[in-house]
C-alpha cells in the first residue's frame, strides 16, 4: 500500500514534469498570437483554480470571493508601480503577502461559519472590497489604472507584442500551484483535512490544529491567487475594479476546478484546458452575431458537464486507470 502510494506520487511528479516540458515547447509550434493568448489565459486560470482548490477543494471551505485576492494582487502591483515606481516584481510579492495576511484575518471569524453562511460571507466580503475600490479616488476609482506601455523589459515585466514572456510566467505559476497542491496532499495538513472529511468526530479532537491548518490553507491560496492578479495587471496593463474584483471572477476561478474535479490534483488543470479555450472560442466565433448564441452554447456545456460528471472530468481518467489494475 505504502509502496503503491509512493510510486503513484512519483508517477504524478513525472507526468507533471513531462506536461510542463511539452507546454514549454508549445510556442515553437503555435505562432498565432490569438491562440497564444488563449494558452496564457488557460495557464492563468489553471493556476488560479489550483490555488482556489487548496482552500475550497482540499480544505472544504468553499470560497466564492477569491476575486478579492486576485484584485488585491492586481491593485497592489499596479499602484506601487504607478505611484512609487516600485518594480512589479516587488509589487507582486507585496500583493501576495498582503492577501495572505488579509485571508488569515478574515479566516479567523469566517471559519466558524458553516456551509452557505460561509459561502455568502466570502461573496459579500469581496463585494465590499469591490465597492470600496470603486469609490477610492487615490486608487483611480472607476477610472482604473492604465499602465503605460514602454519598452519591452523583464524588469518592468512589459512586452508590447510578444506573448511568450507572459506564457512562460503563467506556466511557471501554474506549475508552482500544482506543486504546492501535490506537496500538501502528502503533508500533515493534507492528512488532517482528509481525516476531517472522512470522520466528522475527528474534527472535534483535532479542533485547534485543523483550524490552524485552515488558516494556512487560506494564506497559501490567497497568496497564489494574488500573484495571479499581479500577473493579470501586467498582462492586460489596465485594471479597473469591475474587471479584477467582480463576482463573476470568483465564479470563473472556481469553475475549472469544479468541472475538472474539485479537491483533486489534476482537476483544475483539466478543467481550465477544456473550459478556457471553449469560453474564448465561443465568444470570438459565435459572439459576433449579437444574438446571445455564445451564451447559450457556453451555459449549456457548463450544465451538461457539471451534471454528467459531478465528481469532475478527472474521474474519466481515474476509472480508466483502475480497471486494468484489477
Amino acid at each position, binding site marked *: 500500500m505504502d509502496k503503491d502510494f509512493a510510486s503513484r506520487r512519483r508517477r504524478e511528479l513525472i507526468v507533471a514534469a513531462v506536461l510542463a516540458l511539452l507546454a514549454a515547447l508549445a510556442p515553437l509550434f503555435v505562432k498565432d498570437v490569438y491562440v497564444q493568448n488563449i494558452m496564457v489565459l488557460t495557464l492563468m486560470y489553471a493556476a488560479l483554480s489550483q490555488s482556489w482548490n487548496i482552500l475550497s477543494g482540499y480544505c472544504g471551505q468553499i470560497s466564492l470571493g477569491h476575486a478579492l485576492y486576485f484584485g488585491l494582487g492586481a491593485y497592489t502591483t499596479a499602484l506601487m508601480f504607478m505611484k512609487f515606481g516600485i518594480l512589479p516584481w516587488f509589487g507582486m510579492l507585496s500583493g501576495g503577502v498582503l492577501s495572505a495576511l488579509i485571508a488569515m484575518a478574515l479566516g479567523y471569524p469566517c471559519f466558524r461559519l458553516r456551509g452557505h453562511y460561509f459561502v455568502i460571507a466570502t461573496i459579500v466580503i469581496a463585494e465590499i472590497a469591490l465597492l470600496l475600490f470603486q469609490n477610492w479616488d487615490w486608487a483611480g476609482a472607476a477610472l482604473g489604472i492604465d499602465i503605460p506601455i514602454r519598452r519591452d523589459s523583464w524588469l518592468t515585466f512589459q512586452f508590447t*507584442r510578444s506573448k511568450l514572456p507572459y506564457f512562460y510566467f503563467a506556466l511557471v505559476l501554474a506549475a508552482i500551484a500544482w506543486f504546492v497542491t501535490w506537496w500538501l496532499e502528502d503533508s500533515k495538513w493534507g492528512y488532517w483535512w482528509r481525516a476531517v472529511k472522512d470522520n466528522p468526530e475527528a474534527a472535534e479532537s483535532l479542533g485547534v490544529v485543523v483550524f490552524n491548518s485552515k488558516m494556512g490553507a487560506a494564506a497559501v491560496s490567497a497568496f497564489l491567487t494574488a500573484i495571479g492578479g499581479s500577473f493579470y495587471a501586467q498582462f*492586460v496593463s489596465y485594471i479597473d475594479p469591475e474587471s479584477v474584483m467582480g463576482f463573476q471572477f470568483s465564479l470563473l476561478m472556481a469553475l475549472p476546478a469544479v468541472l475538472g474535479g474539485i479537491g483533486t490534483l489534476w482537476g483544475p488543470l483539466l478543467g481550465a484546458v477544456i473550459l478556457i479555450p471553449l469560453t474564448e472560442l465561443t465568444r470570438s466565433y459565435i*459572439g459576433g452575431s449579437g444574438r446571445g448564441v*455564445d451564451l447559450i452554447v457556453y451555459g449549456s456545456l457548463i450544465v451538461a458537464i457539471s451534471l454528467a460528471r459531478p465528481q469532475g472530468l478527472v474521474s474519466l481518467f481515474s476509472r480508466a486507470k483502475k480497471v486494468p489494475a484489477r
Partner: protein
Amino acid sequence: MKISRRNLLLGASAAAALGPIAARAEASEVAIGVIYPLSGSSAQIGVDAQKAFETAADIINKDYDFKLPLAKGEGLPGLGGAKVKLVFADHQADPQKGRAETERLITQEKVCAIVGTYQSAVAVTVSQTCERYQIPFLSADNSSPSLHRRGLKFYFRASPHDEMFSKAMFDFFDDLRKNGQKIETLALFHEDTIFGTDSANAQTKLASERGYKIVADIKYRANSPSLTAEVQQLKAADADVLMPSSYTTDAILLVKTMAELGYKPKNIMAQDAGFSEKALYDAVGDKLEGVISRGSFSLDLAEKRPMVGLINEMFKARSGKDFNDYTSRQFMGLILMAEAINRAKSTDGDKIREALVATDMPGDVTIMPWKRVKYDEMGQNNDADPVLLQYLGGKFVTVAPAQVAVSESVWPMPAK
C-alpha cells in the same frame, strides 16, 4: 469537335478579361474591425451599433447620391474600388476581452483599422493594443476625456468628449442667466463608472469656474435595484437644474422613482447616454417633457441636409429605430475611417494614420452638426460642436448652439 481560331481567341480574351477581375476580387476587400458589447448588460448598444455600421458599409460599397464621402460610386476608389468588409467582435464590456479580440482582429482577420467600443474602460485596452500593432483606432462613441490624453499615436476621436459636452451645457446656462433666468444651484447625479466619474469631474470644474453652486453630488451604483435613497437626496436639495449622467436602465428607474416620491425637478440637463435612448422615452416620455440632453447629433439637420433624413431612413429600415446620439456617431466613425483608408490608398497602418492626421473635412459633408473634422496632435477633433436637444412634444429639437438651433428653448421645464 472543331475548335475554330475565332473561338480560341474569344476564350483567351475572355480569360484575359476575367483574369484581372478575379485577381482583383481577392484584394478587393478592406477589412475593418468593429468591437462592441454584443452580449451582456449593454448588448442592446452593440446590436444597434451593428446596424449603424452595416448602413455605413452599405453606403460606401454601393452607389448613392449623397454629399457624403465615399457615397458616390462603389467601394473605395483609392484602392481600385475595394469593398469595405466589417468584422464584428464581442468584448462583453471586459477590458481583457476587448484586448484579446483586438489582437484576433489584427492578426487573424487582418483588419487594417478598428472602430469601437462604447465602454471607455474597454477603449483603454483596445486603443493600447492598436498602438502596439500600429493599427489606427477610431473611438466612435467613447466620451471619456482621459482617452486621448495618453500620448497614443494611433488614437483618433471625431466626436466631442465630456468636457466639450459639459462646456456646451454651461455656455447654455450662462446665456440663460444673461437673459434673466435664475440658475444658481445644480445637482449632479452620476453613476460610479468611468463615464459617470469623468462627466461629474468636468461638471464640477465648470461649475466652480463659472459660479454655480453644486448642492448635491450623488454618485450611485450603476444598475442599482433601487434609487429611492438617491432621489430623496435630490429632492431635499431641489436644485435649479438636475444634471444626470446615467445609462438607460438607471435613467428609467430615476425618472420613475422621482415621480413616485413626488419630486419634479425644475429642470433636467442630461449628459446624453440613457437620455438619448428611445427606450427611456417609450417608458417614461410623458414625465420628460422639456428635458434637455446634450448630443452630437440631431435629426433636425435633415431640414438643411436632406441626406441626413434619407440615411436615417436606411438605418431605420434595418433597426426599426431613428438614429440617436450613439448610432449616428458609430455610422460616422466608419465613414471617417474608410475615407482615410481611401486617401491613404493603402491598408498599411502607418499610411492610414498619416491620412487620418491629414484629415480636414468640412462638417456639411457629414451627417453631424460639426464644423469640421480635423484631429489635433492627440487625435481629438476639437471642431465637433456638441448640440443641446430638448424633448418637446414627443421629439427632440435642437435648441443650442444658436447657429444650428431650430427653435427657442423652453425654460424652465414645463410643469406637467
